[in-house]
Each structure stands twice: as structure tokens, then as C-alpha cells.
């Protein structure tokens, strides 16, 4: 009993112990809860945990800011031939840091350097040893690049390397601009180069020269972006909101330049550049009626694709340089004198020299031509005659005309850095010499603008380079508009007098431009030989070749439409004359223009009829009706095929080839154009190997010989 009560006592004591310990444990549990609560609040509300910004990190984790790069607009010639377009190149790099592991725990760094170097050397223009050196930099690096040998890779090269499945080898895309034509109005088209953009942290193309720079905003476009949330496997969460801004690709420029004329001009300029090594050449071909520049270039130039020559020719000589134009300027002063009624062709004056304000001005032939009528002043390019004409006009009138010609004012052509030039018009000598283009400095485009008045009865039009602007989808945003500059400067009658005199310049007897005569071609020219102001000051440079030689020519003089203006500075004459050098550019260009103009005027396009199943006689009649010449290949009578599909376009007078099946005898191809040959090959199945351009001069198979299908004929073409 005692033992029992003792146990009971013990038990109640034990239970009170349990009570105490239990309460302490409860307090401990409550404390743990408090700690958890605090920690929950801390992580949920505080910005950083263990020094890490959680908000930022989660944003990075879920959010994908994807920038959709806008592509830069393409620059085309007037016929839609690409002059400058976007392309993408790649730069390779290698990750060396071993902490780089992908989500599958596979290495994303270069594991085997020797093997990697060896494999890469098969594609990169670098030796395996060199690559190995790059892979083992002196200082510890997270990643390395391979210098110029590892950049500028094409997509094909990139794919080759990717196929090797080398861990840690990565690429970055660098935008680049493709100039497929090489030297091609380089200073006008200009250059776009990749530049690092801090905002987007990537490289983008930026125009740095020429039209690329002037129209940079038009061409650039606006990057789009997409912000989305993704799960751990990079799947976009469907129910999360997306922010999306569509990309606006850059607009395209269609230039007024004509690729054929331009390429031809470039070839001619290069020839002259090589032969006579002048300081510079400029050349512009313009449609005076519209102000469209059809071709324009300069030397020195550069190749925008390879950047060759760029360091020596940053300046766009056509607008950024001014010069004293010399006698080619007489077109302007002559028009002024005629229009102001101060030109009397039958009045005589003494040529050779004239004294004015204490200075003596000589004709280029210092002895002169004796006493001659004013009607010869222009063709002989007589300075004394022009001084006298200026004096007759009076400086006020002359100044007024200069102003109306916008001399000393920018043309506003869409090229960066145009210089306005200036006129010195203080003393009577200054005023007098401007009449023959000295003491006045201009840029080439100002001259083109002034000359354009000849094409529009005294009304100048602004020279322009951009035919139209289209958006990315090819929709025209801005078409071409002729921009008249000022009001007509002179009358149609004056124009006719000036043009008549320009024709006379070609005269073998007295004219200065006989070198430019091209048979009976209806052209008019004015030559110029301008002194070059000594850059060190104090008068003009001396010596046979220290001139800017120039020529301006218009076609046709009946109603001028095309204008060529060439200048060449300080050529090494080497036994020839400056006129001959210029003529070697002028004449071929002019002859191209004449051909172009003729086809422009006389031809009309014809829709090709369907000749299939007609007899040859029917077809021939039908062809004649629409203005085509039917050429029959084959011996039978019913037509089975035609060289150009029905409803496609041909020019009237063109040949249309038809095939009647059966034996084919080799036709006489003499005089056939490339287009003709193409049609022939189409209908007959005979293969042609064509050499040269122009029309056929010889063929390897004689006329009349039977041709077997699959046989090959060699033909030579000549201009």
C-alpha cells in the first residue's frame, strides 16, 4: 500500500515534470513558427537574398526579350538590279571556361583543344597550330575569338563547322552589306558598315557615306521585339501575356542610275585612270528633262565590297569638292549675253588679249585670231570675246544671271556634305573672268543643274538620284517628281542660239571640240580648260597638265535630253591631248546614250501572240500585223513551239522564233542579238556557247548545215 502511494506520488511528480517540459517544447515550436514567418516575409518582400537580386534574376529566368532585327533596305538601280543589299556573316568563338555546362549537364566548353584546332583548321583560313594558340590564351579567359581568320564566315562555313559538333564552339551573327557590283558609283551609293549599338547591345548597319548615309533613316527600319514568359524548357507559356512589336524593315531605294550605263562608265574611267593617272576624274550622265542622274562616278574611287581604295578616296568629289569650271562655264555666260540682247553675232572684235583694270587677259591662243565676229567667240572659246560680252552685259546683269543659275548655292542633291562654292565678284577683273569660268567655284552637280536649263527651254531642274522609295513589300511610298529650280532663265530662242553654237564647237576648222565629233550625231559640246588655283595661294598653277580639262555635251541638239559632263584634273598627258583622253570616255558613253535614246523613242512594246498550231503563213501574217519578224526553225509547216511565250513582251521589230518540228538547218545568225540566240536555243534545243556582247559576227557551224539535237554551236558577238 505504501509502495503504491509512493508510486502515485512519483507519478504526479513525473506528470508535473512532463507539464514543464511540454510547455517548454510548445514555446520552442512557437519560436520555430515565428522564425519561419519572419523568413517567409523576408524572402517575399526583400529585394535581395544572400546578396542576390531575386526580382532581377526571376525576370531573367522567365522573360525572353527577343529582338527581331529589322533588315536594311536594298538599294536598286532604276531597273531593279540590286546595288547594295543585306547579308549576314558569322564570327566564330570558343568558350574555354569549364563552368559552362548546358541544362543536360553536357559541357559547353572546348573539351579537346588539339582535336578542335585540327578540325577547325579544315574550314578556317588558319593553321591548326595557330588555332591551338588562340585556344590557349596567356591570360585566363572565359571565351576567345580567332582574329580576322575567324570572322566574316559565310553561312556555309558556319554549317560545316556546326556539323563537326564541337563542344564550346559558338557563333555570333554580324550584319554586313553586300555590294555585288564592286566599283559602282561608289561615292554616290556610299557605304553602310556594322556599328555597335549600345542600346540593343548588338551590331547594326549604319550608313557612313553617300546615299547610304543620307538615307540612313529610310533604309534602317525599326527593330521589333517580343517579350514573353517561358517555362524551364523554353516553351512559351500560352496563358501569360506577351508584349509584341512587329519589325519594320527598312525601305528600299530605287536609284535613277542605269546599271548598264554606270558599269560602262566605270570601265571607261578605270581605263583612263590607269593610262593617265590624273589627280581626279568626274563624270555625270543626266536626263536633263527630268533631272535623273543616269550614271555618275569619280576617280579615285573604292570598292565598297572589299573596301579597297577607301583610305585614299573618302571624298565625294562630285559634291564635296568645288573647282573653277573654266570655259565649260561659257554655256552659262553665253546664254546670259544672248538672252539679255547683248550678243550680236555679226559684230567684230579684236581677239588675242584684252586689258581690264590693269591686268591683261589672253585667249588660249595668245596671238588670237585677228579681228573676228562674236559668232566665233563661243566655238573658238575666246576669253577676250567673253570678257567683252560680259562688259556689254554689265556686271549687274551678269550677276543677276549667275544668281538665277543658282551659282554659289547648294543644289540640295541627296548626298551628304555638299559644298556651295563661291563667286568673287569684287573687282572688274573678277567679274570679267567669271564669264569664262575662272574666279567662280562650283561643284559638279551645280553645273549639271545649270546645264539642265538647255533641255527645258531655260528652266533648270534639280539633279536627283532616287527614282522611288518602296517599303519592304515593294509598295511605292514615294515616286519620282521633277523638281523645277527657280523660273526659266532664258527663252527658247536663246536656247537655240546656244545649242547652235555648241554644235559649231565640233567644227574641224575653228571649233575646240573636234575631238568629240561622232559622225553626223546630233550633239553639241563645250570644252573647258580651267586653271587650278594654287592651293598655297598666289595665282594659278603653271604647266601643261596643271588644268582641269572638261567637256559638256548634250544630245540631241534639236531637243536636248541627255547631258554628259566630264572633268579630268591634272592628267599625265604623255604625248596625247586632254581632249582625246576625255573623248575616250565621252564618245563611247554618248554612243550608248544615242542607242538608248533611239530605242526609247522609236520602239513600242508588243505583246507576243500565240502562234501554236498556226501554219507558217498564218503566223507570218500575224507577226507582221503586230510588228514582229517571224523566224521559222524546222522544215514542216505547223508551228509546235515559240521562242517567247504568248502575252509576254517584245519590242516591235524584234524577231520571234517559231519551231515547226522536223530537221533543223543551221540559220545564218549574223546580226542576231543575245535575245535572238536565246529564243533560237529555246525552240530548237540546240546548245549555244556565246562569247562577247553585242551582235553575232561569227558562228562555228556553217549556214545550212543540218543540226542534230544536243549539238553545240559556238558564236562570237561583238559590239
Amino acid at each position, binding site marked *: 500500500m505504501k509502495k503504491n502511494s509512493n*508510486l*502515485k506520488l*512519483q*507519478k504526479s*511528480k*513525473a*506528470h508535473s*515534470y*512532463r*507539464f*514543464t*517540459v*511540454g*510547455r*517548454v*517544447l*510548445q514555446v520552442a*515550436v*512557437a519560436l*520555430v*513558427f515565428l*522564425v*519561419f*514567418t519572419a*523568413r*517567409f*516575409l523576408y*524572402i*517575399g*518582400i526583400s529585394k535581395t*537574398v*544572400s*546578396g*542576390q537580386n*531575386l*526580382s532581377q*534574376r*526571376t525576370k531573367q*529566368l*522567365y522573360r525572353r526579350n527577343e529582338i527581331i532585327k529589322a533588315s536594311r533596305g536594298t538599294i536598286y538601280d532604276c531597273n531593279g538590279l540590286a546595288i547594295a543589299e543585306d547579308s549576314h556573316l558569322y564570327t566564330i568563338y570558343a568558350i574555354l571556361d569549364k*563552368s559552362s*555546362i548546358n541544362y543536360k549537364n553536357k559541357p559547353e566548353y572546348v573539351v579537346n583543344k588539339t582535336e578542335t584546332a585540327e578540325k577547325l583548321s579544315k574550314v578556317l583560313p588558319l593553321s591548326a597550330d595557330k588555332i591551338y594558340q588562340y585556344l590557349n590564351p596567356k591570360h585566363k579567359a572565359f571565351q576567345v575569338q580567332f582574329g580576322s581568320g575567324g570572322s566574316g564566315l559565310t553561312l556555309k562555313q558556319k554549317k560545316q563547322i556546326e556539323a563537326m559538333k564541337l563542344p564550346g564552339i559558338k557563333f555570333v551573327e554580324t550584319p554586313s552589306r553586300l555590294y555585288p557590283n564592286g566599283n559602282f558609283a561608289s561615292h554616290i551609293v556610299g557605304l553602310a558598315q556594322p556599328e555597335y549599338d549600345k542600346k540593343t547591345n548588338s551590331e547594326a548597319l549604319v550608313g557612313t557615306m553617300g546615299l547610304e548615309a543620307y538615307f540612313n533613316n529610310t533604309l534602317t527600319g525599326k527593330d521589333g521585339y517580343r517579350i514573353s*514568359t517561358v*517555362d*524551364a*524548357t523554353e*516553351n512559351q*507559356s500560352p*496563358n501569360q501575356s506577351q508584349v509584341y512589336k512587329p519589325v519594320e524593315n527598312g525601305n528600299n531605294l530605287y536609284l535613277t542610275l542605269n546599271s548598264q550605263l554606270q558599269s560602262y562608265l566605270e570601265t571607261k574611267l578605270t581605263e583612263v585612270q590607269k593610262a593617265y593617272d590624273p589627280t581626279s576624274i568626274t563624270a555625270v550622265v543626266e536626263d536633263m528633262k527630268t533631272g535623273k542622274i543616269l550614271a555618275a562616278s569619280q576617280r579615285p574611287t573604292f570598292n565598297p565590297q572589299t573596301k579597297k581604295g577607301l583610305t585614299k578616296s573618302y571624298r565625294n568629289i562630285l559634291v564635296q569638292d568645288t573647282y573653277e569650271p573654266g570655259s565649260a562655264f561659257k554655256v552659262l555666260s553665253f546664254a546670259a549675253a544672248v538672252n539679255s540682247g547683248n550678243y550680236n553675232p555679226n559684230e567684230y572684235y579684236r581677239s588675242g588679249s584684252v586689258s581690264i583694270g590693269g591686268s591683261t587677259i589672253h585667249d588660249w591662243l595668245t596671238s588670237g585670231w585677228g579681228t573676228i565676229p562674236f559668232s566665233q567667240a563661243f566655238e573658238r572659246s575666246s576669253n577676250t570675246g567673253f570678257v567683252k560680252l560680259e562688259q556689254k552685259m554689265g556686271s549687274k546683269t551678269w550677276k543677276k544671271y549667275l544668281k538665277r543659275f543658282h551659282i554659289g548655292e547648294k543644289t540640295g542633291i541627296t548626298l551628304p556634305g555638299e559644298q556651295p562654292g563661291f563667286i568673287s565678284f569684287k573687282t572688274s577683273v573678277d567679274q570679267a573672268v567669271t564669264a569664262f569660268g575662272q574666279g567662280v567655284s562650283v561643284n559638279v552637280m551645280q553645273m549639271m543643274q545649270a546645264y539642265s536649263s538647255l533641255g527645258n527651254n531655260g528652266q533648270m531642274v534639280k539633279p536627283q538620284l532616287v527614282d522611288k522609295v518602296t517599303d519592304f513589300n515593294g509598295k511605292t511610298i514615294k515616286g519620282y517628281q521633277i523638281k523645277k529650280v527657280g523660273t526659266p532663265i532664258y527663252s527658247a530662242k536663246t536656247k537655240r542660239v546656244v545649242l547652235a553654237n555648241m554644235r559649231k564647237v565640233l567644227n574641224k576648222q575653228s571649233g575646240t571640240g573636234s575631238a568629240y565629233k561622232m559622225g553626223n550625231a546630233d550633239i553639241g559640246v563645250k570644252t573647258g580648260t580651267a586653271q587650278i588655283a594654287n592651293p598655297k595661294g598666289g595665282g594659278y598653277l603653271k604647266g601643261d597638265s596643271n588644268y582641269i580639262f572638261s567637256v559638256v555635251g548634250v544630245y540631241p541638239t534639236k531637243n536636248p535630253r541627255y547631258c554628259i559632263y566630264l572633268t579630268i584634273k591634272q592628267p599625265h598627258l604623255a604625248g596625247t591631248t586632254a581632249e582625246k583622253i576625255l573623248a575616250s570616255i565621252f564618245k563611247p558613253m554618248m554612243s550608248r546614250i544615242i542607242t538608248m535614246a533611239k530605242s526609247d523613242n522609236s520602239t513600242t512594246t508588243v505583246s507576243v501572240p500565240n502562234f501554236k498550231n498556226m501554219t507558217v503563213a498564218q503566223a507570218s501574217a500575224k507577226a507582221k500585223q503586230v510588228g514582229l519578224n517571224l523566224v521559222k526553225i524546222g522544215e514542216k509547216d505547223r508551228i509546235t513551239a515559240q521562242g517567247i511565250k504568248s502575252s509576254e513582251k517584245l519590242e516591235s521589230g524584234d524577231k520571234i522564233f517559231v519551231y515547226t518540228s522536223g530537221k533543223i538547218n543551221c540559220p545564218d545568225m549574223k546580226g542576231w542579238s543575245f535575245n535572238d540566240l536565246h529564243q533560237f536555243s529555246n525552240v530548237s534545243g540546240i546548245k549555244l556557247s556565246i562569247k562577247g556582247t553585242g551582235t553575232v559576227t561569227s558562228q562555228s557551224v556553217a549556214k545550212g548545215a543540218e543540226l542534230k539535237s544536243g549539238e553545240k554551236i559556238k558564236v562570237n558577238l561583238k559590239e
Partner: protein
Amino acid sequence: MRRKLRYLNYRIFIPYLILVVMGIVLVYSASSDILLVNGFKPSVYGIRQAIYALVAFLFFCIPFFALKIKVFKSPKFVAGFLIICILMLLWLVFLRFFHSSAAVNGAVGWINLGFINLQPLEVTKLALVIYLAYVLDHRDGKLVKGKIKDNLSHPAILAAFLMCLVIVEPDLGGTAILFMITLVMFSVSGIPARLALTWLIGIALVIGLVVLIIIIWSPEFLQKSYQFQRLMSFLHPFELERKGGAQLVNSYYAIHNGGVLGVGLGNSMQKRGYLPEPYTDFILSITAEEVGVILTILLVGLLFYLMLEIMNVGIHSVSQFDALICFGVATIIFTEAFFNIGAVLGLLPITGVTLPFISYGGSSMIVLTAAIGLVLNVSANEKMLKEKDETIA
């Protein structure tokens, strides 16, 4: 039974119900995205969890509540339960050493019974609680100075044996829970309060010290061990994000992303593949992200309230057995919650312990529900005893 229902402790029963229902909703939300991505119905785990909860309630909570306490006190039941557990643990040890392909994540913790992946550890927790309650009930009033060692050595040895079986799985978290159960139940078994508290504080200090030494010393032979790496990634989660810190880092992201009010139920980003197994160990991170920290704290608060209520029953118990059952069950719930939430919050290393009542899992649900049934039984029993005492007095 009907009479017993009158004595149902609603302060335990209601929180339990709320937690289980919340658990089903949260499991559904946290698992739906992963299931969908992997081509399953998004509701599979949610429905399974509901079935587990229902089955557990019908077949375990009700019987454990309805059966007389005598049944649980009977030596046959205690011994039988314990032996089954030991056999299951031995089977796992056998699998681990002779059939290593059964290992999941380097550990063998499950026995596949076809309809359920049974976790012997879960069952063992409850078995240990009942066993210790049984043994210590018999030692009631005998744990006086000088006799404590003798009286506690046998149960201590048996508990140690169980821990050994669990640690070789290897399951450090499970071992720690068994250790905590033993420690707490010993400390409330009636030994002098001062002695008990000295022991508790002493052991806490020793564990803290050992961990500190390991961290500072960082011995090489340990550096490759899984546990050591876990410890390191717990200390430096951001630096070691790629080498094991990812879970904790992503848990931080989730809680932070949710902020005070959450991103809305179902809208968690972290459950979309960033946080592995978002419906088990890290379900609370996803909860915090979706409903915000305030509601999450309330949920955790409810769990802690449940513990304190169970402990209250224990504290006021007349019967030693009843008291020990309560403390044992409270310890199970507390330790699991402690390790789970501690890991989620970056306060403790990740030990792979699930959150009671909330995390997805059948074994845990069944055992905890049985334990709650037992506690409710005990609570009703105590009320009846007290009523009887009052009527006698």
C-alpha cells in the same frame, strides 16, 4: 463510438480537415503543369491525393479513433506493429545491398505494393511512437534518479536499432525524425524537467557544433559525399546553383515571385519545370508563389496550431500512454514540418522530407491520418477519464 464522437476534439479535427483539403488543391495546382507537359491529365495527382486522403480517413482515421485505447496498449499489437516495421526496413536494406537497381535517386525507400508505393519509414515513425508510449507508460513513476538509465536503456537501444536501419538506406532526414521522436518522448516521460531540458539543449548544441566544425574544417574525405555537398549548396545556393543549389535558388525565386499576395492560384512560373517535383518537397514554395506569403504563413500557422493543440492534449493528459502518444505524434508532425519548411526557406539543408498533410504522397497521408485518429481517440479518452474523475469526486 457515438458516445466517443461527443468527445471529438474539434480543435484538432478541424485544422486536420482544412489542411488535407488544402493539400489536395495545392497538389493539383502544383502538379498540373508538369503532368500536362508530360502528356498526362493535369488532375491525376490531385485526384490521387484526394483518394489517399479519403482512404486514409475511412480505413485509418476512423478505426484508430473508434478502437479502444486498450487495443493499442496491448503488447501483441505493439510488438506485432514493430516487428512488421523492422521486417520492412530489413527488406529495404536487403534491396539496397543486393538489388541496387531498385534504388531511386541513390536511395531505397519504397516498397511497391502495386496500388501504392509504401514507405516503411513513415509507418515506422508511428510504430516507434506507439512502442515508446507503451514502454514508457510501464515506466511511469519509475524514472527517478538513479533508475533512469536502467529504465530507458532498452527502448533507447531499440530506437537506435531502427535508426541504424534507416540510416543505411540512406535517409538522414528519416533518421533525424526517429531520433527527435525518441528524444522528445524520453524528455516528457516523467524524468526530472531540469535533466530533460539539459539534455535537449545539450544535444542541440552538440549537433550545431559538429555541423560548424564540418563546415569550417571541410575535410577532404567528406567533400565528395552527397550530404556534404547538400550542406554546401545550402550555404552557398547561388554560387553552387549548377551543382545542387538550384532547388533552393528556385525556391527563393518562387517565394519572391509570389511576394505578399501571390501571382494567383494556378499561375506559378516556378512549377513550369524550374523547381523539380513542385508537388512534394517544395510544394510550399509553389504555394507561396501562387497565394503569397501571407496566406502561406496562415497555412503554416494552422499546421503549427495543430501541433500545439496535440501537445496541449499531451500536457493535460492523465494517462502517461495518452500523453506520450500526443507528444510522439506532435513530434512527427513538427519534425517533418521543421525540416521541410526549413529547407524551403533556406534555413536548413535539403533532407527530402515532405510537408505533413500537404505534400503529395500516400504513405505519409495514411500514417499521419492514422496518427491523428489515434490522437483524437486519446483526446476523447482523456475527456472521458476526466469526466469519470469528476463524477467520482
